[in-house]
């Protein structure tokens, strides 16, 4: 899964730092400041949150030791494939979380 934010083809390759930064902003921002009603409704937030807790170490935001990340992994299997793409598409949504 090193491909998240790295080694990704074409357009995605251009801004790995930007993606990382926006994920960080997204999650920390939401955690610190609470979220708007809209954002809550979308429930996208939790998905991001869980993915981040599980795979955060790959993005330079280690939250769980990898040993324990593996316990969460089975539950996020369907999201892993699409997550990266969605992160890119919804990057602009970040603002909605503030």
């Amino acid at each position, binding site marked *: *899964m*090193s*491909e998240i934010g790295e080694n990704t083809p074409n357009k995605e390759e251009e801004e790995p730092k930007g993606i990382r930064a926006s994920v960080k902003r997204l999650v920390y921002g*939401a*955690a610190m400041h*609470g*979220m708007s*009603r809209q954002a*809550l*409704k979308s*429930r996208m*937030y*939790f998905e991001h*949150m*869980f993915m981040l*807790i599980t*795979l955060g170490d790959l993005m330079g935001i280690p*939250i*769980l*030791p*990898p*040993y*324990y*990340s*593996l*316990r*969460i*992994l*089975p*539950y*996020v*299997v*369907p999201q*892993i*494939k699409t997550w990266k793409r969605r992160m890119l598409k919804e990057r602009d949504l970040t603002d909605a979380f503030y």
Partner: protein
Amino acid sequence: MKLMSNTYSTYTEFFDQKKDIRTLIFAGKGGLGKTTLSAATSIHFSNERITKTLVFSTDPQASLSDVFEKDVFGKGEIKLADNLYVTEIDADREIELYTQSVRQKIFDLYQLEEIPEEIEEYIESAKAEPAMHESATYDAMVSLVSRGDYKLYIFDMPPFGHGVRFVSTADVLDNWIHKITDMREKSEEYEEVAAKFTGKTKQDLAEDAIMGELTEIRDRLTFFSSMLKNEDQTGFFMILVPEKMAILDTERAITMFEQFGISISGIIVNQVYPPELLEDEDLSDFLKHKIEMQQTHLETIYKRFGDRVLAVIPMYDREPKGIELLSKVAKDLFMWEKPD
């Protein structure tokens, strides 16, 4: 560096005062004597204090087998004598079994024929992480202690294990769990009434499962962290030899532990050549010099660590191995008297 003052000044006094002691942890760099002193202490407790004791090596360089002269590696909890049990986990095998159970869970959840490539990649890369071994052993520690089959647990730790990081991980994760729980509650308030009648969605269930796992992980990490911080139930000893580097390393480690809210119970100085040897005229210059250096460093140790020094153990003329020789080490440990 701040050392809390204490009312015990020897190893024996420590145990005489701490009647609720449940866990002992030996830390320090490799080769100083952690395994030897863990083993000696386990013999003392099982024998002299009739305490059902488990000594557990978390050091990947399997060594209890070596000091007890019996192969116990990866064999579970082995009884060596009355009240004396030993276990040395085969972390590689534990990790293999554990990752296999993760795969199984994925098969079960999604009825897959095989694990998707990127998932397999993730599992393999996690497996290769150096921290994996450590986590697996700490997790095994938590399982053992929470099962509570023994009265005393003695942990022979890997050289300056980064296990203390677990302590802060527990707090971080606890924060996340609170935040998520809080938000989930709020988000439920906002959800449309209609949704309530349809019951929990698939996504809700997945979230619940994740929250369940996170909470359990948090509890395990917290268990470990409160164990380390509980001064009535846990003895945390650092092993030291009278050498300059070892003294510096120990000071650094103590500072680091204190940053995590862990204070050490005491220091045991090991491998000290008896100064009486200096009276021997045939003593080689090498040893003479060595002994003099050790005495200088010993003074430094007393100056820096003061009343935290709970025992000074001599350098024996051969490696203390096997129950008989280890009993002698135990005697030296528990009979030590503080010089004036």
